[in-house]
């Protein structure tokens, strides 16, 4: 399926994993940004990745727990950067272009790079 196809948001896009052109795992589609007007077609504008995007999908008490464990960052990836949609979403570009690996990079600084076989 391409980004221009008709998409069932809940069953064919939300909560699916995202991979970049380097085959790196970039997270999960946590929400989407739509554009359109009354009487016009609704179009997908961007994917939102990161726990901060749960806000509209979750009660506020649950967000407290989520923030505690996973933070509240959101990264926006425009739909024109999506190459295909299937059991996983694939991007046309490296995830790094949109800062999708920033949280992993920050955590990496805390870890010694030695000792593992």
């Amino acid at each position: 399926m391409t980004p221009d196809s008709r998409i069932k948001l809940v069953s064919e896009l939300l909560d699916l994993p995202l991979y970049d052109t380097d085959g790196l795992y970039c997270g999960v589609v946590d929400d989407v940004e739509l554009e359109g007007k009354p009487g016009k077609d609704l179009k997908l504008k961007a994917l939102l990745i990161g726990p901060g995007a749960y806000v509209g999908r979750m009660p506020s008490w649950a967000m407290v727990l989520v923030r505690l464990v996973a933070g509240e960052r959101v990264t926006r990836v425009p739909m024109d950067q999506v190459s295909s949609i299937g059991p996983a979403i694939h991007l046309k570009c490296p995830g790094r272009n949109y800062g999708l690996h920033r949280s992993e990079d920050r955590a990496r600084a805390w870890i010694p790079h030695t000792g593992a076989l």
Partner: protein
Amino acid sequence: MNPLELTLGIMTAVGGFVDISELVFAAKAGSQFGYALIWVFAFSTIGIIVFSEMSGRVAAVAKQPVFNLMRHRLGLKLGLITLAASIVSNLITCAAELGGVSLILNYLTGAPYMLMAIVMTAALIASIWVLPFKWIERVYGLLGLFMIIFAAALIAIHPPWDKIAGGFVPQIPHGLSTKELLVFAYFVVAIISAVMFPYEVYFYSSGGIEEEWGLKDLLTNRITSIVGMGLGSLLGIAILSSSAQLFGPANVSPEIPGTAALEAAIPFGKWGLIVALLGMFFAVAGAAVETCLANAYSIAQFFGWIWGRHKKPWEAPRFTLTWVALFLLALAIVLTGVDVMVLVEFAILFSILVLPLTYLPLLLLSGDRKYMGQYVNGSTAKTLGWLYFGVITLAAIAALPLYFLTSGGNG
């Protein structure tokens, strides 16, 4: 097929079946009700084989671990509730395993229990840090096979095989008072929970992804589930049967893991005891690793983090920090001085409550042709899957009332 490929199933099963809760519950069940609970082990074993095979098949075909797909299928809210419940259940279980392995080390060395808990936490963290996934499963899976001494011990004490065979027939012992019947029902629920611990499925399916299973591995998955879980069940039944013969008639109630080790000491003497304690040590340590990694897998998969121990620890940094933090939290629980057996009871109780939430999405996913194509559940898997889902739902509903009515199985 390389026999070493079976180690994922063996580690999952040895760590899942013969973990600290199983050692205690199987021995207590045998001592209290003779051979009458063997059928519950056999029945639950078929259940865990069915669900392990499903989770491995989903990993091999959809190339997605269970928690990723669970969130997509259940939605964010119900997915988060499942995640929160399984984190609590797995953390308590991990603390129980850590306490258990420290206790065994205390038996082996005589060193203080709390000190052993700190040493073991450091050793387990170091082992996961240093060893790649394949070696983690080989080390804990294969060394846990010392537990086979329990099967050998059962043969050596010449048990009444006809009574053991009779134990495979579903039954409720005659002549029990209402109070004893409730305790029997509590044991039924506790054994189902202990055999079908949710962390086994999280660990097994994530292990399949760690090992990069594909369609060619579907047979390996099936054999691994059956052989691994079958072996774990055999060891559990051996512990129960030895206890029925040795402890029941002497009115000994095995309240601590060390009592189970005596089952090997009676026929084989000092060396039997040492081998049994070593087997218990590696099996319970494997269970601690399994519960901790299962928890870290679930969190990382839910939030979309890079995960896996086939990667170097710094290549999956948030996952690494998570499993290290979970081990430290489990250690903190042990260091509060809470009794290991209390932790075991809570682990069993929380797990049974999480079971339906774990197995329903798995059942739905493995039956969804969109994900699974031609490898969707067949009629046998579908029938057994829904049957066991019904059973674990009933067990989950009954668990809390039975726990309170029987004071945690103590009558």
